[in-house]
C-alpha cells in the first residue's frame, strides 16, 4: 500500500509529473484545442470529468477483476468504460451546450483515445492506490491537464498579436511554445516523488 499524503498525490499528478508536459500523454488535444482560452478551459473540464469517472470505475473494476482472478481483463475493461463515459459526456454536452459541442468538434469523441485518461487508470492501479487516493490522483491529473491547456491557450492567444517570422507561423510556433512549457515543468522535478 501507499503511504503518500493526499496533498502530495494531488501535487504530484498536477505539477511534478504533469501528464501532458512531463509524461507527454494527451498531446493531441493539447495542440488541437488550445487555440482559444474559452474552448481550452471547457475541454479541460470535460477531460477532468471523464478522468474522474473512469478512475472511480477503474478502481471498482480492478477490485472486481482481482476477486474473480482475471486481472488480464484490466486493459480491455478500462477502455470499454472510458469509451462509454466519453459517449455519455458527448450526449450531455450536445444537449446542454450545442455551441461548445461544435467548438470541441472531433476532439470530444477523441477523448476516448486520449492516452492521458487510460494512463491515469493504469498508473493508479500499478501504484496500488485506494479509492480516495485514486479520486485525488485523477483530480490532480485532470487539473494538471487543464492547467497545461489553459497555459498554452493563453500564450497562443497573446502570440496572435506578435510579429513572428513567416517560417514559424502556425503549428511550428505552437510546438515551440509546447517545448518551452515542458522545459519549465521539468523544473518541478524533485519537488515530489
Amino acid at each position, binding site marked *: 500500500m501507499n503511504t503518500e499524503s493526499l496533498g502530495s498525490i494531488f501535487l504530484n499528478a498536477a505539477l511534478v509529473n504533469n501528464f501532458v508536459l512531463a509524461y507527454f500523454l494527451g498531446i493531441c488535444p493539447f495542440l488541437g484545442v488550445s487555440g482559444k482560452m474559452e474552448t481550452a478551459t471547457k475541454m479541460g473540464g470535460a477531460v477532468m470529468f471523464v478522468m474522474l469517472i473512469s478512475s472511480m470505475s477503474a478502481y471498482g*473494476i480492478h477490485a*472486481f*477483476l482481482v476477486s*474473480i*482472478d*482475471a486481472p*488480464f*481483463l484490466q486493459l*480491455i*475493461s478500462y477502455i*470499454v*468504460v472510458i469509451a*462509454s463515459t466519453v*459517449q*455519455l459526456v458527448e*450526449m*450531455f454536452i*450536445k*444537449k446542454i451546450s*450545442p455551441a461548445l459541442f461544435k467548438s470541441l468538434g472531433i476532439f470530444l469523441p477523441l477523448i476516448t483515445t486520449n492516452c492521458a485518461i487510460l494512463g491515469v487508470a493504469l498508473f493508479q492501479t500499478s501504484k496500488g492506490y485506494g479509492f480516495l487516493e485514486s479520486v485525488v490522483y485523477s483530480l490532480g491529473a485532470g487539473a494538471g491537464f487543464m492547467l497545461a491547456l489553459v497555459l498554452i491557450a493563453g500564450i497562443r492567444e497573446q502570440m496572435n498579436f506578435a510579429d513572428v517570422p513567416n*517560417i514559424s507561423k502556425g503549428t511550428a510556433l505552437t510546438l515551440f511554445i509546447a517545448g518551452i512549457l515542458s522545459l519549465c515543468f521539468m523544473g518541478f522535478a524533485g519537488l515530489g516523488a
Partner: protein
Amino acid sequence: MSIVIAVAALGGLTLLLAIMLIVANKKLFVYEDPRIDKVEDMLPHANCGACGFPGCRPFAEALVQGRALPGKCTVSTDEGRQAIANFLGVDMGAEEKKVARLACAGGTNVAINRAQYVGVQSCQAAALVSGGGKGCFWGCLGHGDCEVVCDFDAITMNEHGLPIVDQDKCTACGDCVEACPKDLFSLQPISHHLWVACKNLEHGEAVLEDCQVGCTACGKCAMDAPDDLITIKNNLPVVNYAKNHNTQVPIQRCPTGAIVWFNDDGEPIKGKESKKIIRKGSRSLGNT
C-alpha cells in the same frame, strides 16, 4: 474455466454500460432537423469553403435555417442548386460568379531571372531564398504551387511558367490565393474585365530591365480613363471598380500591355499600342 469467467465478466460489464448509454440516449436526445442531412447529401461534398462556411455541413445548416441561399455554392451545378432551392422552397439566390485572377504576366519569355533556383520545386520554398530567383521581386515564381493546390483542375501552368486559370472550372474557393507566396491571386467578380496584370512597385526603365510586360507607371491609362476610373498608386494603376468600369479605353495606349481586358472566355486582350511579344523561348539569366 478462466475463459468462461472472462467472457461473463466482460459481457456483464458491456451490457451494463450499454443499458446506461441507451437510457442516456433516450433522456438526452437532441432533435436535429432531418432536412439538414438531406440538403447535405444534395451538396457537392467538396468542403471547399467557397460559400464562406467551414464546410458543406455547416452550409447545409445555414441553408435550412434560412441564413444563406443555395446560390452561394459555386461548385454545384445550376440543376443542383435549383434542386436544393425547390426542396427548401426558397429562392435560389444569384451570386455573381467570381474567378481567381493573377496579377502578373511575366512568363519566362518576357521576364528575366537574376538567379537560377534549383532547390525544391515549390514557390513557397523558392520564396524563402531571398524572394526567389525572379528578376522582378513581386512576380510569379512559376513553380506551380497554385496548380498543385487547386482541387478543381482549374489552374494549369503554360509553357512560359505562368498559371492560366480556366474560368469555367474555377469555383473561387480561394485556395490559390492562400498558396501564392507573392499574393498574386485574388478573387474577382467575372464582370471585372479590366485588370492590371502586374504588381511591380518600381517605375520606368527599372521595370523594363526585369520584365517586358511590367507596368512602368507611365500613367497613360489613368489619363485616358473617364471619370477618374483609374488612379496611379505606388507606381501601379488602381481600378475603382465601384465606378462604371465597362470600358476598353484605358488599355489602348498601354505601351507594355500590363493593363488588359479579360473577354468573356477569360482570355486577356492587350491594347493596340502594346509591344508585341514574339519570343517563344525563355530569356537568358540577367546580370543585375
